[in-house]
């Protein structure tokens, strides 16, 4: 018995596992909970199976309380790779338009879907039929909850007013709210509606979103279509882009059309063509934040749904040891515009500059954020120190009201530092001092000289040149002086002839004086002899006065004088000596002849240079 029971349980488990592996999903929904007796409603039954070829068979439920006005069916096959294996998902959507037959509470029984011999059923639905002419309350769609249940201007279906008529491709821009507040998020979506095959899109050009701070929510990299029935025609809706927009100022704002180039056809070869489409412009009326009940000093950036928390770590610390105060604002809205309250001066606590860190995320199409402000606090005294409550006013657009969020006060216990720790436990040091930042100003002023540098002054270069010029002058002067200095011996050589001539002129004068009886013949001859010997001494370097006639003759011959000249010189000198020491023997005529001969001899002697 127990063996059979176990087998049955095993079989049940296998069957359940097989069903799970097939992954069959069926559902039914209506587009309204209420319908007037003269109206219609749509029943949509969706069956999704994990199969490429097999189809699920739908059996409509017993609709005894309704008349079937029309019935349509669409099918979509999606192909994906899961863990490297191809997976197909076939979705069949059957839409039935129903008209109620009677008033009251009506039921739509469960529909039955058969797939591979197994039956699956949908849930039972309940509809309330109203008297003819009465407007039913719009029913919210179950699959897409409204973004803001309090918003009167929320647009639940982006295609609710789309009428493509005969167009195959429609680019549709939509916003989920037409009258947002300043700083409130709205979602801008761009859809492509197609009833032809779309193989790709290109050159998607979003409009300039001036007047908004925007954040990307969704930017699909692949085209994933969703079946939609619009005006009874099946379309596939492709979401191309979704952005969150935060209006920055109040007033009427227009969002220009977006543009995209759509490639239709199959693959690369079959009838592939390109078509350009533009969306319709959008207009929205941004409302200013209400003035009533607006808190004093309200910061216009604090819009959204935010919470505020504060913490201190650690809450018990030794004096002088730093603690970290952390203030966190978290919620929905634009965290970048948020203005958080600041911690003021707290007696007994030295505070350092705060650091701020923002994080953003997208959750269910909503921009959420978290701002964390951290501040280092150092207790300067022992005992309990209370960090006061901080509050922040904000405007919650969901509630259309201002409210205040607060943190609780935090009690910090500060105790005296143990002596050993105070002496220096470097391992516990936490006060990290990073370089940078503006340095403190100077309190003492010194006056700087802005005089032009010396090398730009007029005296600089001349002064540099003075030294070398002075030395050059000194050296030049010495050289000049040396050049100008004369050798007396040479001078005598140079002047020997003129000196001898001068003596001969003196002798001539003595001759004239002798004629007048004022001079003697010995004076004349002495002068002639001095002329010759002086010349020989100065010019020829021969000290004739101290030489015998033979020595003089040899000396003159040694210097290259012709022997005739030498003999003549010796003769004249002998005649002069005789006339000087034996007077009376010389008349004036012979003296004139001797004077003339002496002059001629000087010329002959001068022909041979000294030392030649």
């Amino acid at each position: 018995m127990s063996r059979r029971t176990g087998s049955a349980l095993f079989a049940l488990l296998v069957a359940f596992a097989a069903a799970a592996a097939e992954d069959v999903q069926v559902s039914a929904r209506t587009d309204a909970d209420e319908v007037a007796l003269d109206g219609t409603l749509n029943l949509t039954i969706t069956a999704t199976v994990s199969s490429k070829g097999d189809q699920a068979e739908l059996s409509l439920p017993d609709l005894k309380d309704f008349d079937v006005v029309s019935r349509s069916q669409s099918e979509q096959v999606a192909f994906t790779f899961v863990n490297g294996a191809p997976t197909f998902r076939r979705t069949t959507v059957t839409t039935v338009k129903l008209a109620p037959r009677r008033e009251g509470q009506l039921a739509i029984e469960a529909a039955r879907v058969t797939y591979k011999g197994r039956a699956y059923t949908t849930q039972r639905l309940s509809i309330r039929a109203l008297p003819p002419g009465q407007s039913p309350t719009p029913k919210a769609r179950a699959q897409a909850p409204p973004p803001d249940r309090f918003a009167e201007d929320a647009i639940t279906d982006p295609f609710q007013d789309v009428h493509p008529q005969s167009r195959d491709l429609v680019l549709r821009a939509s916003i989920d709210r037409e009258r947002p507040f300043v700083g409130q998020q709205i979602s801008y979506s761009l859809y492509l509606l197609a009833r032809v095959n779309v193989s790709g899109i290109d050159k998607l050009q979003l409009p300039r979103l001036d007047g908004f701070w925007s954040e990307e929510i969704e930017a699909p990299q692949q085209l994933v279509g969703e079946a939609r029935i619009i005006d009874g025609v099946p379309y596939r809706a492709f979401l191309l882009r979704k952005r969150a927009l935060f209006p920055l100022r109040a007033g009427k704002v227009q969002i220009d059309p977006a543009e995209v180039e759509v490639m239709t056809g199959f693959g690369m070869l079959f009838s592939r063509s390109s078509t350009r489409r533009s969306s319709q412009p959008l207009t929205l009326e941004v409302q200013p934040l209400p003035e009533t009940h607006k808190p004093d000093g309200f910061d216009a950036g604090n819009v959204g749904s935010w919470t505020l928390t504060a913490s201190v770590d650690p809450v018990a610390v030794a004096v002088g040891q730093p603690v970290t105060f952390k203030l966190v604002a978290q919620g929905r809205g634009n965290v970048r515009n948020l203005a958080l309250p600041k911690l003021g001066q707290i007696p007994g606590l030295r505070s350092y500059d705060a650091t701020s860190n923002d994080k953003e995320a997208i959750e269910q199409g909503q921009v959420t954020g978290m701002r964390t402000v951290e501040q280092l606090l150092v207790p300067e005294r022992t005992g309990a120190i209370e960090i006061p409550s901080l509050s922040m006013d904000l405007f919650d657009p969901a509630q259309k009201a201002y409210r205040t969020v607060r943190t609780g006060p935090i009690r910090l216990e500060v105790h005296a530092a143990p002596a050993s720790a105070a002496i220096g436990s470097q391992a516990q040091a936490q006060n990290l001092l990073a370089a940078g930042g503006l340095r403190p100003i100077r309190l003492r002023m010194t006056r700087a000289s802005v005089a032009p540098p010396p090398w730009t002054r007029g005296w600089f270069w001349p002064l540099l040149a003075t030294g070398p010029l002075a030395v050059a002058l000194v050296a030049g002067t010495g050289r000049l002086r040396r050049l100008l200095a004369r050798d007396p011996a040479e001078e005598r050589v140079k002047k020997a002839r003129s000196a001898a001539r001068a003596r001969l002129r003196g002798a001539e004068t003595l001759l004239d004086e002798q004629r007048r009886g004022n001079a003697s013949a010995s004076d004349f001859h002495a002068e002639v002899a001095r002329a010759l010997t002086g010349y020989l001494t100065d010019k020829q370097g021969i000290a004739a006065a101290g030489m015998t006639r033979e020595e003089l003759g040899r000396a003159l011959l040694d210097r290259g004088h012709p022997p005739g000249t030498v003999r003549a010189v010796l003769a004249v000198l002998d005649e002069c000596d005789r006339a000087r020491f034996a007077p009376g023997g010389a008349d004036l005529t012979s003296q004139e002849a001797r004077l003339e001969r002496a002059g001629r001899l000087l010329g002959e002697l001068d022909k041979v240079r000294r030392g030649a």
Partner: protein
Amino acid sequence: MRRVALAALCAASAAQAGVSVPPEARGNALFDQANAAYLSGETSRAVAGYEALLEEGLASPELETNLGAAYLRQGKRGLAALHLERALFLDPSDDDARADLLEVRRGNVDKLEGESEDGGAEALARALAPLPGPAAAVALVALWSLGWGLLGANVLRPRAALGTSAIACFLLAGAAALVTVGSTAAHRLTLRRAVVVAQAAPAREGPSDRAASHFEVHEGTALRIEDEDQGFRRVKLANGLTGWVPATAVEPVVPPGWSNQRRL
């Protein structure tokens, strides 16, 4: 406005003291007032005080550093960079001015790309700027003249000691000349240095508002002035990017009153 503020301050101080205030004490009093305004967060009043001192012709590295810091607090990065550069010109060893200038540059809009075209001249000028150029120039003149004097004496009365002393003087003069040349080069580069003080200025191909603009410079960017014409200045960035910008958009680091040298 600043002159009126200065006059009012001086008159008040003089009336309070009942005596005539010497200019130096008056300048120090205004400096203290401006510092107090800065420390209490009134940066506009601090800037007015510092600027009044500058208009009096005062040149002080501390004054320029404080003014740069005050402008930075006001978010005027161009003027902050200009006055910190001036502080460094007056005192190249001023660490505070150098650190504040780095802080200013960290927030500059313009980030230069590409290799430096000046071959490191700017870096060399920075390295040479702290050299005691004027003192070295005076020493050069003294040692050079002394060396030649000793040489001249040696020529007239040759002695070994004179020749050795002359050689020693010439060696020292050579060292002083090297320092002077380095300082001269740095000085020449600094004279052409400027800072963008306008928030943004288009750099054009020619000195005209109608000339095409290919790039824009923003406040705080350091550059070199190469020419001036018709209310425009031809500027070159460190990476060689060159253009004509309105003359009022850039300010030379060395103001005209601080040097009688030609800039260009």
